[in-house]
């Protein structure tokens, strides 16, 4: 029972990271119908920025805040400078552009910071936390906390501010949004900025667990895809729930199903994607979009 609880909590922690990245994917997908394959590498690059700041002696939370701000502006700039010129191109062309971004970020990170694996600090205390007879890793609990705070803030933003409302409107109905005076182009850029921001937080939270290196996010991105597919690419809440589910399933399967272990965990994510696509392609909470041709 103790092991079970520990594994669930640590599954929730990694699940929170998948959830964040899945949410970032869904935000961009909903606004533009594009899956941003560079989402993971953008997060990795942001984490390296935080690492450089920390190496220059910045206190953790200052580095955290600066990184989040830089990531937001960076995401905004990527949309304005790189995505916008191909805005009206076929979806496949834009997807290829995001794949190009993936390769560029990966190579530039390797060039600037080398491919040597680096440790990344956790802001949370080291001493294990004991609740009853169960011992929890403080970083796991911290990650769950940070993720939940971020998700709640985002929910409040989208639900209760007029800017959040305008962002949702621009994603749902761009033509109608222009008619009420919403600057749809900027809303898309803002969506990219927010997605980059969420990714940066996810990167900084996962780096202490899997260490820092240019390829650190490739596996995570696949889990994020699995989460978004499971919850539904059209449902932000579903993607978040999908993230936590995938995290817990992955951890429990790795612990209790012997032949999966740590080697086949990633295969499990792909299995989730395939099963969901076969059984319910729109995901648990997604709505299937019917397009008239």
């Amino acid at each position: 029972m103790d092991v079970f609880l520990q594994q669930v909590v640590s599954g929730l922690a990694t699940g929170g990271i998948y959830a964040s990245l899945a949410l970032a994917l869904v935000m961009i997908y909903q606004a533009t119908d594009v899956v941003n394959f560079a989402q993971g590498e953008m997060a990795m690059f942001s984490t390296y920025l935080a690492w450089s700041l920390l190496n220059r002696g910045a206190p953790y939370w200052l580095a955290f805040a600066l990184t989040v701000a830089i990531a937001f502006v960076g995401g905004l700039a990527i949309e304005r400078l790189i995505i916008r010129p191909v805005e009206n191109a076929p979806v496949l062309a834009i997807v290829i552009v995001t794949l190009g971004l993936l390769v560029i970020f990966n190579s530039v990170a390797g060039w600037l910071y080398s491919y040597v694996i680096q440790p990344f600090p956790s802001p949370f205390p080291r001493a294990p936390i004991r609740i009853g007879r169960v011992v929890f890793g403080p970083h796991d609990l911290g990650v769950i906390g940070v993720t939940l705070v971020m998700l709640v803030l985002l929910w409040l933003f989208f639900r209760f501010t007029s800017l959040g409302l305008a962002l949702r409107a621009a994603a749902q109905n761009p033509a109608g949004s222009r008619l009420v005076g919403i600057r749809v182009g900027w809303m898309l850029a803002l969506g990219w900025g927010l997605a980059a921001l969420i990714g940066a937080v996810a990167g900084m939270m996962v780096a202490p667990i899997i260490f820092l290196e240019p390829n650190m996010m490739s596996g995570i991105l696949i889990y994020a895809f699995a989460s978004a597919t499971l919850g539904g690419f059209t449902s932000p809440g579903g993607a978040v729930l999908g993230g936590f589910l995938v995290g817990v399933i992955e951890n429990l399967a790795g612990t209790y199903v012997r032949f999966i272990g740590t080697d086949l965990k990633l295969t499990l994510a792909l299995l989730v994607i395939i099963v969901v696509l076969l059984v319910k392609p729109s995901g648990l909470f997604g709505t299937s979009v019917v397009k008239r041709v």
Partner: protein
Amino acid sequence: MAALLEAHQLEARYGWTKVLHGVTFAVAEGGITTVLGANGAGKTTALRAVCGMVETSGEICFDGRRIDGRATEDIARLGIAHAPEGRGTFVGMTVEENLWLGAYARRDRTRLADDFERVYHYFPMLRERRRQRAGTLSGGEQQMLAVARALMLRPRLLLLDEPSLGLAPLVVREIFRIVRAINRDEHVSVLLVEQNASLALDLADQAYLLETGRVAIAGPAADLRRDDAIRRSYLGY
């Protein structure tokens, strides 16, 4: 009366297809102008041209300033509210959120509560349904929501695209009654595109009849209504 909106030699095209071939029309300050015509005559395109939603040439002036070539969102910010054909509401959002969005471009957001009261006064059923998603409303209710949302901008000019389309006669009469009230009590000028000529001519003071992208007849609405020849050959009633 001075013209609030003037379109001069307006042309509009979708890609290679020209839809308007030099159309001239005006909406007087505080007036109601209607644009009539059969399907495909270019009525909807005329409204879309005013809002910068299609490629145009020619001149469009609003309140004495050129607005042709400007972005749709900037035109909305000048106080031109468009309730598009097919209603154009945000179906995934609640009635209340739709109304919020209607006021999005306004600079003074101070009297927003008054504006909610005002549109709920015109459309009481929107108050009852304010937490309901717009997509779950009936056709008539969605049309009312589209008009209500346009009013939230506190517009100087209201563009209405076939508000009667697909609605029961009783609902249509109700919507027209409200448009008249809005025009009279709040001095909102109206540009109304309609297929239902008899209703539109009753409401409007100025009328234009479009035929395949050209103005066939223009004049005071009362004259068009009285002229039997026009009525029989163009308006079909």
